[in-house]
């Protein structure tokens, strides 16, 4: 093994030291990954010592090993949840058959597409967030940002591991291409829309980790059921990390809300902006934006792709165990499908009983919607406790959608159809306007590097990381 490709530098539980094929693939890919990280990773912090968690094994202690490390020296590893002996496929046409340990040739292309699509989101989010460090509200948040970033990098490694190990030459080419696409670059964009949206400020970052990483959670849950066992095991381990990302998002928004509530109470008119905070309607607009673009990531409500993936036992439902019928040949999903004229005006609705397999994206989206509501209620409780009347809400899932049955049509946040013109007029009342963006940006012009100090617009966290105090120097500049 080369000096770079060995089990010390690359912690793993896939027996890298005896896997010649994987070693060879990584020898070519790893240096390109580091180049990509240096070019597209967090800008301006590559030389800093960051107090990061590194997974060095899959057992309870091993996956949460903390130490200072320079990000380019981070030990990105390859971990799969320990195999379940004699695991059987839990859904689809292959229900009850032994899980596949190699890629069935018949599904090679479908599986590769699933893995590449998932893998592409990981480096994309790192790219989207690369400038945020320069306006960080605290060292604690800066460290959390980097933790999310290096773990998204590790998620990329996880997907690349599958491509390298199971897809031969095609897989190696796809792994290279994952490092070549760039978020927001019109010539070589990332695959999914939301991953080309800029994430320019910290409110967006918290919303992203709350809403968009939660899409990631549900995609991973669906893949964790896959009949292709290595994919199932890889994604199960990724879920443990994803949970932290959503924690960053949920607590991040909550601290903003809490600070806003404090600032409102200081002001006679409960005017947060006057006190240098982010007002609640602006936060609601960010919710509307990130929630709606994240809903799009689930794909069309009526989808033959989804049906095919389910039928082929490649991508299931989140927590498939909780359902009784795992083949889902007969069921249907009742949907009201909008009917529109040429001008995209909704002229009526038709009831459709969509075969349940074709509605799998919507089934997964339902779970996501429920889950998204939970954190939002915690934010509302903060407002209640502060004695503020305002309540956040999730907009209708029809609102501001780019794909699926609502894509390209115009609905208000309650899901009522409206004309394009009326919608455009109301847009800035629902989504962050240029002025809102400028205002939020104006609060975040300079970074806060002093240990323990918080930017004016955000409350401190309840506690630090891994038992360290909030004042701990999480990043050594």
């Amino acid at each position: 093994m080369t000096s770079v490709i060995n089990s010390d530098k690359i912690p793993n539980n896939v027996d890298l030291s005896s896997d010649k094929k994987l070693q060879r693939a990584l020898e070519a890919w790893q240096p390109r990954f580091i180049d990509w990280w240096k070019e597209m990773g967090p800008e301006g912090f590559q030389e800093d010592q960051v107090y990061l968690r590194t997974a060095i094994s899959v057992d309870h202690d091993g996956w949460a090993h903390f130490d200072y490390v320079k990000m380019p020296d981070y030990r990105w590893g390859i971990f799969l949840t320990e195999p379940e002996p004699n695991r059987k496929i839990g859904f689809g046409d292959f229900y009850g058959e032994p899980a596949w340990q190699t890629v069935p040739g018949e599904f090679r292309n479908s599986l590769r597409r699933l893995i590449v699509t998932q893998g592409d989101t990981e480096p994309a989010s790192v790219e989207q967030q690369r400038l945020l460090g320069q306006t960080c509200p605290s060292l604690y948040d800066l460290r959390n940002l980097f933790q999310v970033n290096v773990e998204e990098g590790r998620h990329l490694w996880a997907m690349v591991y599958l491509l390298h190990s199971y897809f031969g030459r095609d897989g190696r080419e796809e792994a290279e291409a994952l490092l070549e696409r760039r978020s927001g670059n019109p010539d070589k964009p990332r695959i999914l829309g939301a991953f080309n949206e800029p994430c320019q400020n910290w409110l967006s970052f918290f919303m992203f980790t709350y809403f968009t990483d939660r899409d990631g959670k549900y995609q991973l849950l669906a893949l964790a059921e896959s009949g292709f066992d290595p994919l199932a095991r890889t994604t199960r381990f990724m879920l443990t990390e994803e949970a932290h990302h959503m924690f960053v998002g949920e607590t991040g928004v909550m601290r903003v809300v809490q600070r806003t509530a404090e600032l409102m109470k200081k002001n006679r008119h409960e005017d947060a902006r006057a006190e240098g905070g982010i007002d609640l309607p602006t936060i609601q607009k960010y919710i509307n934006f990130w929630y709606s673009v994240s809903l799009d990531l689930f794909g069309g409500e009526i989808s033959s792709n989804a049906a095919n993936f389910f039928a082929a036992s490649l991508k299931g439902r989140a927590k498939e165990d909780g359902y009784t019928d795992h083949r889902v040949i007969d069921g249907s999903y009742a949907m009201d499908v909008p009917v529109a004229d040429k001008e995209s005006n909704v002229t009526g609705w038709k009831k459709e009983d969509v075969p349940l397999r074709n509605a799998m994206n919507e089934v997964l989206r339902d779970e996501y919607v429920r889950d998204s509501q939970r954190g939002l209620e915690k934010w509302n409780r903060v407002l209640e406790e502060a004695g503020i009347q305002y309540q956040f809400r999730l907009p209708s899932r029809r609102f501001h959608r780019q794909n699926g049955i609502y894509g390209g049509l115009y609905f208000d946040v309650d899901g009522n159809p409206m004309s394009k013109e009326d919608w455009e007029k109301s847009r800035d009342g629902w989504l962050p306007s240029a002025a809102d963006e400028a205002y939020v940006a104006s609060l975040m012009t300079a970074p806060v590097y002093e240990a323990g100090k918080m930017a004016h617009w955000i409350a401190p966290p309840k506690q630090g990381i891994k038992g360290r105090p909030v004042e701990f120097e999480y990043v050594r500049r």
Partner: protein
Amino acid sequence: MEHAAPSSQEPIRFEAHPSGYKHWVLTFDGPIARLAMDVNQEHPLRPGYELKLNSYDLGVDIELADAVERIRFEHPEVKVVLVTSAQPRIFCAGANIYMLGSSTHAFKVNFCKFTNETRNSLEEACSESGQHYVAALNGVSSGGGYELALACEKILLADDGNSAVSFPETPLLAVLPGTGGLTRLVDKRKVRRDLADVFSTLAEGIRGRRAQEWNLVDESIAKSKFDATVKERALTMAAATPDKVGAGLTLAPVTPKRSTEKGWLKSEYTHVTLTVKPNDRLAEIEVRGPSSAESLAGESLRAAGNDLWIFRAFRELNDALLDLRFNHETAGLVLLTTKGDPEKVRAADKALLDLEASGDWLAHEIRLYVKRTLKRLDLSARSMFAILTKGSCFAGSLFELALAADRSYMLDDEDEPVQIGLSGMNHGPLPMSNGLTRLQTRFLGRPAIPTELVGVTELMDAATAKERGLVTFTPDAMDWDDEVRLAIEERVSLSPDALTGMEANLRFAGPETMETKIFARLSAWQNWIFQRPNAVGEKGALTMYGRPERPELDWRRT
């Protein structure tokens, strides 16, 4: 109702011998051979129909194919073959309708393909081997019967008020003549298309002088003078054909040893092994190169006869392909492999080509046989991957297997390089049905490449072969197993119908010939008309044939 697939019945075998013919009488008289059809109605290949009126089924055609081959190899003295009937008032009524009505679609397609290949071989004997086929139609010749006549160089029709030629398929059965008849009518005999149109919708056909005027036959001859005139014409043709030097070669059987293990069906020939893995929808054909290092040339090569490597190997391959087509319908993907020394293959190729160049007719026949077998491979409706691994000998005539394949996987191993090589066989003697070599067809857009490749005489490793565009993929040892496994699994998961169409579209780039037209149109119309309710539906014409009620047709045109 369709019968169960033939593969669930006794397998069909393709070896025959004149001593066992049930349907043909083959006699020799100096330079003239007489091949008289005398179909025994009690001996259909499958039970369930009677072969009345000299109608034929595959069994009849297997004997015909055997006769054509034997005349070519065993009887170099024969210059004219009279194809005629030994039954009164009927030459041949064509393919048996009840047999067609009770066969699966796949069987019908393969049956027609086989009969076409036999007709092509007969035409090739006329043009390449100095054996001229003359159809002496001493009775009614309809459908496939007239198609057989069309494959002959000359058609002589008895003018007796009864003997007619006809294509009743369209008016009576709502299908088409299945053995290239329509194409040969206008392309080979150049019958005017409006007259051909009239002819092809006239169930009772055309007799006597008019048949000659329309050029449906070469001569219409009064019954009283028919036999004498036929003989006279035959002798004239024979006199104009040069003699061949050297004795004929009596064809020995190539019957393989057949066994079943672990559900795999193995047919082991001397140089070929066919392994069918029904559960994987897969077959493997391994062709082994010449084993002895001694280089046969000239007389010693000729003397090797049936045991000459290239001849035996390709006869075995031919038999394996027919076995595969008829008896293993679900083996959708064929892996082509070879084993041996590429240099020995090239030496064997060269020896045969040298002997042929010296004017030896047997060497010439053997080379034509190799050519026909490779065409049969091209025309087999199976996916084909060539697998080039260590110890393989894809060189010269055997490299044609890789070129015939839909794609090829060649192991790239620096330590023990796998090598391919070209020989004279790759540059002209083994054209496809489009008239081009497989290299020319492969590089249709870059005609300079096949010309350059003539100069490439050294063996090539995987990297070179890939760079020259001679193989598709060259995984290294580490990737090999996965790449090949995935490719195989993926291929066998695709629709067999779509693949058949796709492959046929991609395999035959380049110019159209009568052969390519016949096969392309055959598969196009058969896969449509023969599936349509108007033919095979409950009230379709083919189904209703011979029953009291009339067929009911759906009148909508496409």
